[in-house]
């Protein structure tokens, strides 16, 4: 299972956007070129230690050359520990599929909604929006991309095919992915590694858009401003960011222009906390939330449940209402979503 990465493209690159656009590393064109060439050659580069695993260069590279996946492979090769070892190791064990997870697999029909590993959201998808869509979740269908943050490409590779096999056993030919990361796994990662995905996948935003479009009569426009937290895994499917705009438009949510959105989105900080980089976590959270607050938005909107957990309280204290994209849509059709993870 090899990464489709073409070193020649990097050798001959005219932009080195992967590094010059990076929000965490401040490289000019020259040093970007120097480091990227090392990476292309498979040599050690300081980028391997400095990279904050924000996924963004996957989007920045105009040639689809998978700069980030390449970095993660080399981080692992050079034995770089981004997080304390016990934390990385424990995480690997935590999400390994167990017998009982496999036993939970049932035929569910041709379409299903993947809720990844977020049992706390079970009640949040009990909605007209998802009516008729059976929900599947658990370690057995987990994409494992989280290990991209932990310099551990091999565990993702190891588990990738089994995950796809397991989903097939549910009998679905169309899977709606609640989480960007899940969608990114099938549409970016699988392609980069030449793994075949024998079913169709639909991004949550596309699903929501289609549903809302068909049910426009049920929508009462919200007429609110929202600040959106674009999560790392959305970088694996940048095209879906446009669809989100259309979703917002349908429900009357104005996505405020702010510094840290779209191509400039920044991390929620959760990963930095796991790494033990508290100052960095604090810095990105602070500037992100301050930016949201001054944008005049009423809602802080998340799609990634991890981002939600990391930032909900903080955004609330800054005077915004934290909410998931799907829950915002529920508000627009007159439903009252409850807070994730609360009784």
């Amino acid at each position: 299972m090899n990464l489709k990465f073409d070193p020649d493209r990097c050798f001959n690159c005219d932009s080195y956007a992967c590094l010059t656009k990076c929000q965490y590393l401040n490289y000019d064109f020259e040093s970007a070129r120097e480091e990227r060439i090392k990476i292309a050659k498979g040599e050690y580069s300081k980028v391997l230690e400095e990279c904050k695993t924000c996924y963004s260069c996957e989007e920045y590279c105009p040639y689809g050359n998978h700069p980030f996946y390449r970095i993660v492979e080399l981080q692992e090769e050079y034995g770089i520990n981004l997080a304390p070892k016990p934390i990385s190791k424990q995480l690997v064990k935590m999400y390994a599929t167990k017998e009982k997870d496999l036993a939970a697999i049932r035929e569910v029909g041709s379409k299903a909604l993947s809720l990844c590993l977020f049992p706390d959201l079970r009640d949040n998808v009990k909605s007209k929006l998802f009516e008729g869509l059976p929900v599947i979740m658990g370690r057995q269908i987990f994409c494992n991309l989280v290990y991209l943050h932990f310099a551990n490409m091999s565990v993702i590779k190891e588990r990738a095919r089994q995950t796809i096999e397991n989903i097939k056993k549910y009998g679905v030919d169309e899977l709606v992915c609640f989480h960007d990361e899940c969608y990114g796994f099938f549409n970016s990662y699988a392609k980069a590694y030449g793994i075949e995905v024998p079913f169709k996948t639909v991004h949550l935003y596309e699903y929501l858009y289609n549903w809302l479009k068909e049910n426009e009569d049920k929508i009462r426009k919200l007429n609110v401003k929202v600040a959106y937290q674009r999560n790392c895994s959305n970088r694996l499917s940048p095209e879906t960011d446009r669809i989100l705009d259309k979703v917002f438009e349908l429900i009357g949510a104005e996505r405020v222009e702010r510094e840290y959105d779209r191509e400039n989105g920044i991390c929620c900080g959760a990963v930095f906390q796991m790494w033990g980089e508290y100052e960095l976590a604090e810095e990105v959270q602070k500037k992100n939330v301050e930016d949201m607050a001054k944008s005049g938005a009423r809602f802080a909107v998340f799609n990634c449940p991890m981002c939600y957990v990391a930032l909900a309280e903080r955004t609330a204290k800054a005077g915004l209402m934290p909410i998931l994209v799907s829950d915002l849509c529920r508000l627009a059709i007159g439903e009252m979503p409850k807070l994730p993870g609360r009784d």
Partner: protein
Amino acid sequence: MYEELKAIVGEEFVSKEPEELYIYSSDPGTMPPVKPDYVVMPKTTEEVQKIVLLANKHKVPVVPMGGALSLSGLVRPLRGGIVVDMKRMDRIIEVNEKARYAVIEAGVSEGRLKAYLDKKYPSLRISTPDAPPIATVTANALIHGSGRLSQIYGFHSEMITGMEVVLPTGEICRVGSCSVSPYWFSRSPLPDLAGLFIGWFGRTGIVTKLGIKLFPKHRYRDVMIFVTENPSYVSDVIWRVAHTEMAEDITVWAQPRPEWAEGFQHTTIYVTADSEEELEFKKKIIRNALMDYIKQKEGGFLYLTPGMKAMFLQEPMSQLVRFADVRRGGGFEYVGAILPVDLFDVAYQKGLEIVERLGIDWAFSIRIIGRSHCMMFAYAYPFNRADEEDVERARKALHETNKAVLEMGGIPWKAEAPAQQLILESMDEGAKRLIKSVIEMLDPNGVMNPGNWEVK
């Protein structure tokens, strides 16, 4: 005697029926049952006094019982006699808010005192142990229990400010400031008679009222879990965190289940504060104290989801008792070894060696007592109550652990009667003689919970 007991407590509150005798013959641990002759439930100190006088008259043993949750069979009447269930004496007599103490009857449960303070004195708290909430505050303090504030203030026995006791001969006596003054503020500056009743397992009298320290309760409370994969780091981790004086409670847990936990040590650190800034500040200081480990990638903080946090913040942590269901058999018991924190690694390795050799399920759960002055290292073994062999395996593991603990220089806490004998074997002769004479002096008829701390 039945008639006499009825006359003391009233017909409804005394029993000699097989059903009560059956239930009161054992606790949830592994020690074999011993049947009492009677079970009584007094409501007042005077009733307790009359029961003790009656026992002296007939020369039958009396055994006080609280929640029966110490698990080491301490409330079994080893020589038969009367089990005195104290839980009807459940009045909270006084809370002195300014001097931060409460005076309670001996049957008041941990749960009720906590709920009472939460409601009426929201700025005060007790040091809650993680025992199920029906455990009594009095028995817990008397057996040297420990809890949520023990890292700061020590054993719960050190929080006792005074008591009212019915002596084995039936006299009522007060110890601590309440023996002189109307206030129950402390045991100092008098000869410390409280020591005659603490750690004796009811061998020297029945405590009927207790003065217990209360502590400030802060508005914010948070939990952090530091994970290592090397037990030899843990005592230093604890030492560093204790040094900051920013943590309230420090516990450590290590267990093979769930699978992700196996092989790791989890140091759980509780932090409280009155403002968010203070909380953040304290957490930062603690993180910094451990920064060497983090930088060297040898240890890090577990990312806690809100659900996990809620579980760890619960007081008492109800999750703990569910350990009894690991073998789907409703039982567990532990050796609670009191040890210097420095011996963490030795204690940990020894425990692993025992459980591996005996092939038994386990969990280690440790609470720091004092600023790493010592720790309560619990070696917990679950068993299936319906499978006698399984119970026997747990018994054997407990026995071996008790021995190992003494060998490494620790002392089993709330020891079962056989383990008390092991302790006595290692004890200084002078101390043993003193124990013997105290018992003989206080209890000439040998009626108070005989069979415990029996110096041969």
